């Protein structure tokens, strides 16, 4: 990502204005979700992104996923993307797990035929049991995340993007996601994970990135980035540092 900026414009009622809409409605305020972001993640790397709510983590991941285009600069992403940009992101609440698998598998890049052939894999991997054929609104947050993650695995992505996913997962499934992320990294892929569960992020990503107000505030080894982010919490930093040495 070179000098990437994502701008949000608002009208007087606080509604988002797009470039086309700006011909009809007057722009009253603007905010940059990201600004002057330079970031290069090489194959085989994993990046843990931290920062306060509203710091630009989700916007950055959305640009990486191709969901949003930058208003400034350029973003080049080379690889097959698997994105879970919220727990159960993309999962339709009124659809069953099976129906969601068909929808999300195709949207993620598989053909309809491939997706249908592999639906049972998702049922097995997500460990949802009978709930797989029930509407997703009956699921817990963790179950939705499991479903979304199991669908991602179908596409065998070389780039895995995770946003605040670990927070909703139980320990068993969290370990699976971490293992899967490490597997992608070891095979020369890329993992970018953002969130507030710093322990989980540190286990998956040796490199850290701290965003603040849409800008990069710190970048480097994860424990150092955390010490910049949370200087008033040295216990966290020491624990993270120990975790890195142990790992």
């Amino acid at each position, binding site marked *: 990502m070179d000098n990437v900026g994502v701008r949000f414009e608002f009208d007087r009622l606080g509604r988002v204005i797009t470039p*086309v809409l700006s011909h009809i409605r007057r722009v009253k305020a603007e905010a940059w979700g990201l600004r002057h972001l330079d970031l290069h993640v090489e194959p085989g790397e994993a990046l843990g992104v931290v920062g306060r709510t509203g710091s630009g983590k989700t916007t950055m991941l959305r640009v990486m996923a191709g*969901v949003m285009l930058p208003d400034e600069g350029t973003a080049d992403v080379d690889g097959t993307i698997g994105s879970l940009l919220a727990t159960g992101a993309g999962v339709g609440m009124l*659809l069953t797990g099976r129906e969601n698998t068909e*929808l999300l598998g195709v949207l993620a890049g598989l053909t309809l035929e491939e997706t249908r052939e592999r639906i049972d894999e998702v049922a097995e991997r997500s460990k949802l049991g009978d709930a797989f054929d029930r509407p997703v609104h009956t699921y817990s947050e963790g179950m939705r995340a499991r479903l979304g993650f199991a669908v991602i695995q179908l596409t065998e992505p070389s780039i895995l993007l995770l946003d605040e996913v670990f927070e909703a997962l139980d320990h068993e499934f969290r370990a699976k996601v971490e293992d899967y992320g490490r597997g992608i990294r070891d095979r020369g892929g890329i993992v970018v994970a953002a969130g507030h569960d710093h322990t989980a992020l540190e286990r998956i990503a040796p490199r850290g990135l701290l965003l603040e107000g849409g800008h990069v505030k710190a970048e480097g080894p994860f424990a150092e980035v955390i010490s910049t982010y949370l200087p008033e919490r040295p216990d966290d930093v020491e624990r993270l540092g120990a975790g890195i040495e142990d790992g």
Partner: protein
Amino acid sequence: MPGLGARIRRSWDVLVVLARSDMQVRYGRGTFRILKWLLDPLAALGIYLVLISLVLGRGGTAVGLSIACAVVPFQLIATTMQNALQSVSLRSSIIVNMSFPRMLIPASSLATETVAFTATLAVIPVMMVIYGVAPTAAVLWLIPALLATAAFALALAYPAALIGVWYPELQPFAGSFVRTMFFIAPGLVALEDITGTTRDLLPLNPLTGIFESFRDALLYGHAPAAWQILAPLGAAALLLALILPVFRREESQLAKLVG
């Protein structure tokens, strides 16, 4: 860059899953939904029939079939537009999470409602039997009439999808706008029964061509006039030529609008 064949196949698959999931969300599952697709136009038909025959005391040739020739194609246009108004917001969770061709979202509204519409079409032979109108070779003109109807519905779906996210508060107004179009077309009374300036002005509404082409093919048993097919097709082409570049620009902004 994948080849043209691969891109067409990918677009088709995306369209199918968007429409299938939409249908499951909007209409549920199982055979009962077919009942709903039949009952909706039958209810509208019944109300209009009572209005025309009993309240206004107007007759005409096979009045029920004549109204069905307007209500049935209008059902596809109105439901597609209603669907498209919510098509982006209902898919916000996938729009903010995955990259896929958003241009297909309004098209999927048409695909969903076309499936429902095939059930609705059953109303027409029922009315033909009731009024003792035998089909002629002109029934084949139903194919271009259906294509013109679908093209016009598609052309309305794109602006509707944008209005649905730009001005969500205007969604009820958009619905009223389409219903108004029905009433300023020969929906309840056939064009041949209308006289004066009104008759001259009605063909400006693309729905007039659609309704009259259905009547020609099914009720009067002759080929529709060329303008009846070309007017809605031309209106659709014009609208699409204007709105597709706008939608193309906006598709990369949808995540900001619904995120």
